[in-house]
């Protein structure tokens, strides 16, 4: 047991890269980092995950790009960003200067584009890890999203893994709207992923009953926020059960330390915060503090001891028997 004044060892590992704590921003939810830096020192984050960087500058989707849904929001930003050259010239160096650990998210429309991005990033100083955003339409497969196809996901991951420096971990980011998340996870690990991040936003939609038209200009959009947390917990749980040795970055609707702990107990060793940042610029630091307090209350000396703990066979008693049948009924 800890005494009240002892602190919990919050260090964690994203593959072999040590992070001072498990709380990061989620890709696309902290822009270039500069905005958050007005509020607090970015070095206090486990890592800052960048928006998904593309080869060319992208203007994104038309507006409205955002709609609120019950305990969630839909977005269709469409990867607006400056392109990899401007990112390397202007954004990444600023992050490094600020002492942030930078995880760079990349997005492409073909295996070749992901490879090209990896090549541009391979020698960039200050890339702590690469996160491969697989929720992009594959232009070579009728726009079918990579993340929905284990083989296509694996191909992208393998190409990036081969291209990146061996000491920079490659994290594959998966989406929940597939029939079998474990199959995609396994394919990515077989393709060389050092870690997996989940979940990206499932595809959703809302219709404005006054205009009688879709709320978003793009029609559909990604659903994020607390509404999807049960999907995130389930995906983490299934993947951690199937691939217990693979480090998992959990995200989806984390607003509080309790939510972060839920994802950690399911198997995440890193927790990313997205939509909550829109509500509270200090969300990451608050969540980190709350998480540490919760771990302390529960007698943990190290964060690492809580990772995946909900999987352990319980003390005894049939009340806690876990039956892993997959049906939702």
């Amino acid at each position, binding site marked *: 047991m800890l005494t009240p004044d002892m602190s919990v060892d919050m260090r964690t590992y994203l593959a072999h890269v040590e992070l001072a704590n498990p709380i990061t921003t989620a890709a696309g939810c902290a822009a270039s980092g500069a905005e*958050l830096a007005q509020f607090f020192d970015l070095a206090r984050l486990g890592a800052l995950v960048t928006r998904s960087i593309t080869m060319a500058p*992208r203007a994104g989707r038309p*507006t409205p790009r*955002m709609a609120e849904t019950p305990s969630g*929001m839909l*977005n269709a930003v469409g990867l607006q960003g*400056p392109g990899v050259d401007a990112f390397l010239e202007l954004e990444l160096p600023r992050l490094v200067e600020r002492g942030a650990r930078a995880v760079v998210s990349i997005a492409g429309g073909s295996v070749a584009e992901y490879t090209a991005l990896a090549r541009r990033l391979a020698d960039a100083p200050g890339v702590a890890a690469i996160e491969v955003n697989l929720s992009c339409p594959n232009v070579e497969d009728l726009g079918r999203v990579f993340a929905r196809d284990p083989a296509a996901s694996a191909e992208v991951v393998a190409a990036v893994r081969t291209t990146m420096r061996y000491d920079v971990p490659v994290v594959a980011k998966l989406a929940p709207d597939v029939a079998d998340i474990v199959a995609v996870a396994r394919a990515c690990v077989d393709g060389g992923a050092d870690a997996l991040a989940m979940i990206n936003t499932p595809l959703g939609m809302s219709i404005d009953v006054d205009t009688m038209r879709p709320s978003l200009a793009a029609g559909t959009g990604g659903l994020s*926020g607390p509404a999807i947390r049960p999907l995130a917990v389930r995906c983490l749980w299934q993947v951690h059960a199937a691939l217990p040795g693979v480090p998992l970055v959990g995200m989806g609707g984390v607003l509080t330390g309790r939510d972060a702990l839920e994802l950690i107990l399911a198997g995440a060793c890193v927790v990313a915060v997205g939509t909550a940042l829109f509500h*509270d610029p200090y969300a990451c630091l608050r969540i980190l503090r709350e998480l540490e307090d919760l771990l302390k209350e529960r007698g943990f000396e190290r964060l690492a001891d809580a990772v995946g703990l909900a999987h352990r066979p319980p003390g005894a008693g049939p009340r806690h028997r876990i039956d892993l049948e997959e049906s939702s009924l």
Partner: protein
Amino acid sequence: MQVTGTVLTTRRVDAYHALTVVAPGIAERFRPGHFVSVAVGGPRTSMPTRRAFSVHDVKPDYGGTVELVFSVRGAGTSWLAERKARDSLDLVGPLGRPFPVPRDPCACVLVGGEYGSASLFSLADTLQQRGCRVDFVLGAASADRVFGALRARRMGETTTLTTEDGSLGLRGRVTDVLPSVIADARADVVYASGPMPMLRGVTAVAVEFDIPVQVSVEESMACGYGVCMTCVLPVLGDDGVTRMVRSCVEGPVFRGERVRFEDIGTIPFDALGAPGGRAQEGGAHTRHVS
């Protein structure tokens, strides 16, 4: 900055609700044109995104208060309308680019539509302190939706009111009367806040008179401080390149003639990074400047 403020007073003003909130840190930093974002729904809310409101007024009472004026639109503003004195309210602000004010005294026409006029009075104050002449043009659909007519009459050199149903002032729109107000006041600059179509019309008038116009736009916002990229609109930069810029940090106040009003809700084909459009070379061009 984020502040847990306390509601001081609530009142109804015609079609609007006004809330005064004790929020010293925000009041202190406020400049006309700033907005705040408000968390709605209380603990465990089902509404995860904040709501943006212009700051109508700041006062020094209790260390500093801010006043918001709003109309009930959906669930968030309904919740806000039920707040009572002593309730606490979670605010982030002041946010955005405020109205730029001229260095030297000049003649300014302030145009407000619906609750948009709320943000013009503190601006008028500042302008008058700098020796500017201020004329008001306020409009709305109907009399009960014209905000601040009395105060405008008190403050303005002239005040012209328009309503679409003719229930107050002239029947019509602010743009119908704006040319003559500009002419009479020999205006040097126009400031406008209100619905997008009004801003577009006001900009067209100002362009015709060849005077600068500053407009405060209203786009759907999820974060209010620049991280979510949902609040963008196409704006022409100094370099002649159109970019999708964030109205929460690069705005909400823009030079009217730079906003491509007719293309709002689209990605203009010639915007930086538009699908199939030109992708600029080099990094420098890709910064958002407007």
